[in-house]
């Protein structure tokens, strides 16, 4: 039985420790395989390494920046360094989906760090004026990480535009739409359901502007009878679903799981 199958059995049995041990073994064996390394072992190892990195991401997210601030900050930074290194290593597997996933998680790591700074526990003994200065200093520290998150998500968008279409590149686009709506929130339009089984009538909205009246238009009465306006349809947000569906179905990134290799 292959290690991948054994890992899947552990996962199905909710034996997390054995599951992750098996994934680590898969990664270790592939890394040391030398000439015996194949495309298949590289793919399985790459996806195993992604699952391991996701576990590390979960640990990173779980660390809250509380008082004493220096202590919790050092713990979170240490985890962030390890996480960025692990995610960066995933690119070496040269698998499009794993690379896109790693890029997505690197961006989210920066974004999560930025949010953690802003949501960190404030010192209890600050005077109001000092607290205001403290908040300002936090913002100044957090903002560059948000900018880095945007830049890394944009790398995934470049992958998307180069033809790498998967859940990760789509999710990056969805996050960009939330972070930079003026640039990336672009809703598509469905024409909507056709109310008549026989007739579809289209009339450009510009034709309804009162100032624009064509001299040779049909009489208003006839035109009104002939026009069936397409019903307004829900807009489709980047990422593919209608906006309502996107909000309902978008899981928190920490809940995202990768298929067992």
């Amino acid at each position, binding site marked *: 039985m292959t290690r991948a199958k054994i890992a899947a059995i552990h996962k199905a049995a909710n034996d997390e420790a054995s599951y992750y041990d098996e994934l680590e073994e898969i990664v270790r064996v592939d890394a040391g395989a030398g000439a015996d390394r194949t495309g298949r072992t590289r793919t399985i190892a790459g996806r195993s390494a992604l699952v391991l990195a996701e576990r590390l991401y979960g640990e990173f997210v779980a660390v809250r920046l509380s008082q004493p601030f220096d202590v919790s900050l050092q713990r979170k930074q240490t985890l962030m360094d390890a996480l960025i290194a692990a995610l960066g290593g995933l690119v070496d597997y040269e698998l499009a989906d794993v690379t896109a996933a790693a890029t997505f998680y690197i961006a989210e790591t920066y974004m999560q760090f930025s949010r953690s700074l802003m949501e960190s526990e404030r010192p209890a003994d600050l005077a109001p004026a000092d607290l205001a200065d403290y908040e300002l200093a936090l913002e100044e520290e957090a903002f560059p990480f948000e900018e880095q998150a945007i830049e890394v998500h*944009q790398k995934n*968008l*470049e992958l*998307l*535009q180069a*033809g790498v*279409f*998967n859940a990760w590149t789509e999710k990056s*686009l969805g996050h960009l739409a939330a972070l930079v709506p*003026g*640039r*990336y929130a*672009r*809703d*598509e*339009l*469905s*024409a*909507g*359901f*056709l*109310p*008549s*089984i*026989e*007739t*579809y*009538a*289209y*009339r*450009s*909205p*510009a*034709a*309804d*502007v009162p100032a624009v009246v*064509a001299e*040779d*238009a*049909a*009489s208003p009465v*006839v*035109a009104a*009878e*002939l*026009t069936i306006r*397409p*019903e307004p349809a*829900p807009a*489709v947000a*980047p990422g*593919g*679903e*209608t906006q309502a*569906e996107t909000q309902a179905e978008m899981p928190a990134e920490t809940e995202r799981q990768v298929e067992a290799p």
Partner: protein
Amino acid sequence: MMRPARIVRSLSTAAVLLLLGLLVAAGTARGAASTNRKAELPEPTRVEVEAQPGGFVMTQKVKVSAAVQSDYDAAVRMVEQERYDSGIATLQQVTEQAPQATAAHINLGIAYARRGELDLAEDSLRRALELNPRHPVAYNELGLVQRRKGEFAAARRSYESALSVFPDFHYAHRNLGVLCDLYLGAPGCALEHYEAYARAVPGDEEVTKWIAELRNRTAQGGNP
């Protein structure tokens, strides 16, 4: 219900000359269907496309019973109320009873797409295009489905097909603009179609902002 005689009387000579693909015979779809599926196609029907000021009217004479007509109307109400399970089941019945009814296939495709069943949506929309290869709504909705499936080049062709039927079809301009902007990284194409959309929908301030942002970005040489 529209009366053909009145339609003809309402047309000017120029409008008659602009008739878009008058009497488009069904069954001339371009190779989208397999041989087996073509064998299942219903009797050809006639589709009339009449130019109107600022638009067009596309009419397919469909002989359906009062019961099928009632089912269709009920299905439209259901899907508009987002009752997709019952709406899709009813539309399926309509397509069985009146397989030549293009509108039923289009609505079925849209309903499947709203439910995230993209392959079924694509099948229904392709069937609609087999019946009426010039239906811009079918092309527009097919483009949306193809974009969601990551088939960007195919989506572009679908939107362009919609625009070849009616060059001012604003849905296709907007969607092709978004496709070029976000998914193809083609700012020139995006700007062209955002601007065409804005001409067709002059009150859309959101797209006006998109155009300004895109012009600003391209002036700075930036993309994506």
